[in-house]
């Protein structure tokens, strides 16, 4: 990476997520009452409003839901890069980048299987990025 990304500042409600990425886990939350799995983090279920929710480690697998390839320069990226939406096997969708892959429409095929890569930014923040599942190294 050329420069630094705008890094997240965890809050009390999201700290478990960022602690998880530091430890190599993609942590989601599940409602103990209605079993709804959701993201982004919050200490209650957005489906039924129950406060009885649990954190669990997701599989880290998903598929490419949609993306754009930004052509304008960003200090943290070399050349055009994809901003991607990834739908996890557990259901939630999140924004990320696709690594270990050409940043072209030909290489970035919708619904391609992906798996998480944890990319350390500093002592506090590790970002969950995704790579094509076939490109296991």
């Amino acid at each position: 990476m050329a420069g630094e990304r705008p890094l997240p500042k965890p809050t009390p409600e999201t700290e478990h997520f960022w602690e998880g990425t530091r430890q190599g886990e993609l942590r989601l939350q599940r409602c103990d009452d209605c079993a709804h799995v959701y993201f982004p983090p919050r200490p209650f279920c957005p489906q039924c409003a129950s406060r009885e929710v649990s954190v669990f480690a997701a599989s880290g697998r998903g598929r490419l839901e949609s993306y754009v390839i930004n052509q304008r320069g960003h200090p943290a990226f070399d050349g055009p890069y994809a901003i991607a939406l990834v739908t996890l096997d557990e259901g939630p969708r999140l924004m990320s980048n696709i690594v270990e892959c050409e940043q072209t429409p030909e290489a970035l095929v919708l619904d391609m299987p992906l798996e998480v890569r944890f990319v350390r930014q500093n002592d506090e923040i590790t970002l969950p990025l995704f790579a094509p599942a076939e490109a296991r190294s």
Partner: protein
Amino acid sequence: MSQLSNQVAIVGAAETTELGVIPHMSQLQLHADAALNALADAGLKPSDIDGVATAGESPTAIAHYLGITPTWVDGTAVGGCSFMIHVRHAVAALLTGMCRTVLITHGESGRSGVGRGGRRMDAASLQGQFEMPFGPMGPTTLFTLPVLRYMKRYGLTHEQLAMVAVVQRQWAAQNPRASYRDPITVEDVFASRMIAYPFHLLECCLVTDGGGALILTTADRAGDFPQPPAYVWGTGESVETPMVSQMEDLTTSRAFSVAGPAAMRSAGISHGDVDHMMIYDAFAHLPIYGLEDLGFCERGTAGAFIAEGNTAPGGSLPLNTNGGGLSYMHSGMYGMYALQESVRQIRGVAPAQVADVEVSLCLGVGGMFGASGCVVMGRQPRS
């Protein structure tokens, strides 16, 4: 006409004297320039106003700058559709007697950045934590994110997406105030610079300076003003999410699907009653989503509907007749300009006037599919 006491009319409407590049005016003065023009349009003075609504600046700043002492204010700021929502809230305020005459203002130094506050995203917000680290650079990389999923699900082609820009340029060609008026082709769109695949420059809105203002009062007073009134027949509003990544479904806007039908129901109209339509077009896919979420087209068919010329000059459903955000102007919160064009069409004074407009529907979007407001206007009072 006995219903007039239960209705509201737009009795003043105007944009800033200039549109486009206005480096000699601050954002606050753009609000005021538009407000003074709208007051002149209605034959009113600031002291006649007792309700103020605005977004982008605080209603406090606008009221003080113009010398207004309001009994009602609304600072709802949910992006470019805030002004549609202000109209809706103003109807409620006027009909419950909270105020008698409402001024809604917009001004934005989107291009020149004169007197414009910063827009930095807090790193502890959900967007700051779960979107900004992955490199989005504003609307061109966020509003655009859902469209590849739409294209795969419904088979929308790149040509059809480009045709949205081509058709709107046909409208802009008839509008002397439009920023871009030269006709374009699909090939021109494809040849324009790629901004964020699959969006080319000509499929993205302009970035300009400008403003607009509206004045509303109860319909029983509508005859007291120099201009023909535009009656507010129905309104709707909703919000979905501040994060485009968290839309329920990337191929439809939940906010559109709530606000649009609510406006049509409250207006008591069906699709066939709409003579003229505005759909906030920050990017070329917006009119496609809007036509489908309001039920004017079946899912997956609006791209073909537009490409076949149905919304073009001479088509059955004239849409974005000022040229839209893609060709007319776009300061950042474009909703005010869509409302202005609906009023002009109802009054019969638009540069690209559609014949016999009795009903105009105006659909706004805020954020990146985050919010929506919708206003249905009529040339006559609602029966």
